[in-house]
């Protein structure tokens, strides 16, 4: 089958600049929406998936495996673990054991009139505050101090994650080193900023564990995170999850549950499955609306040249060749819109912080999401062209030649 020249499809685009703009902007909007939805889902998955290390194990209170914030274990557990579980990684004799308190607290910035704890200024926002020791820097190897210093115990000092401004809904300047935050009826001085690229940890506020247990008036901790050295069969060194599990079973009095850190955040990711589903459904519904708009635009474009389609058929061009040319034309417009949407998404949406109950994460517009966007643009062109094209090609040639 012989096709119509490609320039026919290209030049047809220029017949009506208004229609062309409508087609490009419509597909731009739909593809951008799909990119944002894709970036959202990917960002969320990546944040939860990347949070936690392969060699880390979390010990939580038995029965609280689904939420570390509800978990309570004895403050003595870290010491017992370090002494009893073989194969815990050490550096210069310091074991990779991090006792932690995880608590969601209303947090607000301190300012004039808000220096005094309990005096409210702007409405506070919930943020995850993690009470840590220096051991946290060992087990959470993705965490890097990018500015300032580590907080000192007893000084009411806090280290803020790079995504914390998004969680708190404030400008990053308000969380600069030297500024203050108010939570747990205490004003905390920001002494540093940390990064943990691509993880949910980046949205947290870290304070010394003893300071946090004091302000939250708790005697227990939330969990212990340890890093195991991979088990080596030849030397017998290192440990496996089963070893830690065995320890937990031998000490039922401690009421511990053992979960690989990755698995814990993986479970959280499953918890957010319905959110992702709703995001896709919403994007799909809006895209469908856009598609119907596109169908109308393309129908108007094709219907205005039914006689021309009849003429081309009278010359010997087959309907499939004309259909293909119309799909080319439509796809060119939607692909242009899709490409522009990808550029905008990469330039302005990639890394855009989004707040969610776990903290915050950045939209991820990576190769996969861009591919999805481009594919959507092409698909819009095909799906948007075929029904109107078929309708305009349906009349017999003799009838089409009489079309006005």
């Amino acid at each position: 089958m012989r096709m119509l020249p490609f320039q026919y499809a290209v030049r047809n685009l220029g017949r009506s600049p208004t229609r062309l703009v409508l087609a490009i902007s419509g597909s731009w909007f739909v593809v951008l929406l799909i990119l944002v939805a894709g970036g959202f889902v990917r960002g969320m998955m990546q944040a939860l998936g990347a949070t936690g290390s392969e060699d880390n194990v979390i010990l939580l209170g038995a029965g609280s495996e689904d939420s570390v914030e509800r978990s309570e274990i004895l403050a003595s557990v870290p010491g017992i673990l370090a002494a009893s579980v073989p194969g815990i990684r050490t550096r210069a004799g310091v074991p990779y054991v991090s006792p932690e308190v995880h608590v969601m607290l209303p947090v607000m910035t301190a300012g004039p009139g808000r220096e005094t704890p309990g005096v409210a200024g702007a409405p506070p926002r919930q943020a995850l505050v993690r009470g840590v020791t220096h051991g946290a820097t060992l087990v959470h190897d993705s965490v890097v101090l990018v500015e300032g210093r580590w907080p000192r115990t007893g000084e009411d000092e806090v280290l803020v994650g790079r995504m914390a401004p998004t969680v708190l809904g404030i400008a990053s300047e308000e969380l600069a080193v030297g500024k203050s935050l108010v939570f747990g009826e205490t004003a905390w001085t920001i002494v540093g900023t940390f990064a943990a690229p691509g993880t949910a940890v980046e949205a947290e506020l870290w304070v010394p564990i003893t300071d946090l247990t004091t302000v939250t008036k708790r005697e227990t901790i939330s969990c212990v995170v340890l890093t195991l050295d991979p088990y080596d069969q030849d030397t017998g060194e290192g440990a496996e999850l089963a070893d830690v599990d065995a320890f937990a079973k031998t000490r039922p009095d401690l009421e511990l549950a053992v979960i690989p850190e990755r698995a814990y955040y993986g479970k959280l990711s499953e918890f957010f499955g319905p959110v992702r589903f709703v995001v896709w459904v919403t994007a799909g519904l809006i895209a469908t609306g856009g598609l119907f708009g596109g169908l109308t635009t393309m129908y108007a474009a094709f219907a205005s040249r039914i006689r021309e389609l009849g003429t081309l058929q009278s010359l010997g061009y087959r309907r499939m060749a004309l259909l293909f040319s119309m799909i080319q034309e439509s796809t060119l417009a939607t692909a242009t819109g899709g490409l522009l949407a990808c550029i905008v998404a990469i330039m302005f949406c990639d890394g855009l912080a989004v707040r969610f109950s776990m903290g915050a994460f950045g939209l991820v517009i990576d190769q996969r999401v861009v591919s999805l966007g481009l594919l959507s643009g092409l698909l819009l062109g095909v799906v948007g062209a075929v029904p109107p094209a078929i309708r305009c090609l349906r009349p017999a040639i003799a009838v089409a030649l009489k079309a006005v």
Partner: protein
Amino acid sequence: MSHADTRAMPGFRAEPEAIERTGTPPSSGPLIQCRRLSKSYVKGDNLITPLRDLDLDVSAGDFLALMGPSGSGKTTLLNLIAGIDRASGGQLIINGIDLSTLSRGQLADWRTTHVGYVFQLYNLVPVLTAYENVELPLLLHRMSARERHERVRTALELVGIADRHDHYPRQLSGGQEQRVAIARAIVADPMIIVGDEPTGDLDEESARAVMDLMTRLCADLGKTLILVTHDARCAAYAKRTLHLEKGRLIELSGVRREEGASANHASAGGAT
């Protein structure tokens, strides 16, 4: 406006060579044979029959004008001969091929090689230049770009519009547009050229120029030319004129009628 000598032009050969080029053995009988040809269709609750039981023979190289009032079936007959419509009954055999036996795709291919169509409103593709419009039918043929270029250039020269090859239809007058349409109709060297009131949208002078051109081409290239027209002046150019009314052939003028032929059976060109 001067025109090139059509007989000296490459790529354009007078019939029957062009017929041989199509791969179909030339038949000894008429080029076009209509036997009890009918066309009917349903419109709403009514069965419309624009053409009924028409018998007609047309020889190769003939120039036939179809005349008659609106709704008499002229355009329907033209469309059937051009292979863009299908008969409801009877036979239409062109150069030995019964068009009713061809599938839709085969009919499209058949049109490509056998028919050139000239429309009243020219029907040029507005986004393509005159050159590209004329080139369109050739893109359906296997030929090199060089040969295609040569043929397009020749066709444009034949109709005297080569100097406007890069103009878009909107940049041409009605007469010039129709010349481009004629070039498009002849460029693939079809054996039959059909025209549906090709001068209907032109002023008198342009109409005369177009008719002069078509007549000359028909004569020089040996094409069979069939025109639908309301204009007696245009019909006067034809060797034969058929008068249709209510789907029936009522008169054949300018050619000898065969003795004993029925009122609805005409032989043009004396082929039968």
